[in-house]
């Protein structure tokens, strides 16, 4: 029998390579975030605690604007719910996988960013690797990249010379590869096409700041009104 420690180390070794593209993207973006807050005169404790407590990139950038505007807590709260509503979809998708008791399970849900969700949803975890530990390490590694970059950016913002323009594409590339892998594995493409098509249409109609909520509503409506074509969605070959 393996000890817990051995099981965990094996899972860490399997999880780390999966997080490398996220490391590139997160370290870059979170340093940029720290530098951004620093440039507006915020102490590094701001980006540090915001990354630790909020851990959601888009809304963290938006929150910088909120902190410099007139004090409006209700607006801040509802804007956050709107920007992050997509996490509701991730939660429903992960209801079975993230059913892990205790702190480990709670941390998986707490750390469910776009990137962590997409890895944990689709990763082919070898049979001899413990799934719970694997997902835990993906989550905590990504969280660590994000928080440490924010601290570095906030502390040493002005000293860092950038020629990393375009590095953030690592995460776009990762989402595309994950989508393609899902596409190659699935029996029916109905749900993939639905997500892509509805979101792209809503992006064109509503613009980049407002398309997520309409996309979610239309996707839910279609999935609810026409169940039959989507029954096989998610099944793999």
């Amino acid at each position, binding site marked *: 029998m393996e000890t817990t420690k051995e099981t965990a180390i094996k899972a860490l070794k399997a999880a780390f390579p999966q997080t490398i*593209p996220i490391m590139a993207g997160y370290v870059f973006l979170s340093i940029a975030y720290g530098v951004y807050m620093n440039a507006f005169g915020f102490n590094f404790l701001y980006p540090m605690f915001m990354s630790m407590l909020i851990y959601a990139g888009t809304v963290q950038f938006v929150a910088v604007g909120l*902190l410099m505007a007139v004090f409006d807590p209700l607006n801040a709260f509802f804007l956050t*719910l709107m920007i992050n509503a997509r996490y509701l979809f991730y*939660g429903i998708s992960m209801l079975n996988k993230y059913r892990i008791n205790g702190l480990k399970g709670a941390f998986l849900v*707490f750390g469910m960013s776009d990137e962590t*969700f*997409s890895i944990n949803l689709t990763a082919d975890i070898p049979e001899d690797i413990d799934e719970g530990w694997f997902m835990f390490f993906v989550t905590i590694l990504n969280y660590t990249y994000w928080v440490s970059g924010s601290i570095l950016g906030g502390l040493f913002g002005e000293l860092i010379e950038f020629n990393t323009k375009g590095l953030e594409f690592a995460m776009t590339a990762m*989402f595309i590869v994950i989508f393609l892998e899902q596409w190659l594995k699935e029996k029916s493409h109905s749900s993939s096409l639905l997500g892509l098509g509805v979101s792209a249409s809503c992006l064109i109609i509503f613009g980049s700041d407002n398309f997520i909520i309409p996309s979610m509503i239309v996707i839910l409506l279609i999935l609810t009104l026409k169940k039959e074509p989507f029954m096989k969605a998610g099944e793999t070959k």
Partner: protein
Amino acid sequence: MTMTAGQHVIIIALVAVGTMITRFLPFILFPANKPTPKYIQYLGKALPPASLGLLVVYALKDVNVLQGSHGIPELIAVILVLAVHLWKRQMLLSIAIGTVCYMVLVQAFF
């Protein structure tokens, strides 16, 4: 800055709580010890591929085809990622080649 440090703490706390509501709500509404409604089970299967599609669009949402570089560097890099991945099916390789290509394009050509 117009706000006090205390007001800053309130704003940050509300953004954090709002984010956690969106992450925890499905797990609170449908706990493990109660049977999950059939409709939610269906959504749990039907939603993931659609969510990944939404994420792809979300990642490319700020590409402007009408202005600047017209989205050409993104288009080239996306095609390269797809091609390399279909050829080798090595996730890190596809991402690395696509990212390096994109960085060269936006730094040197666009």
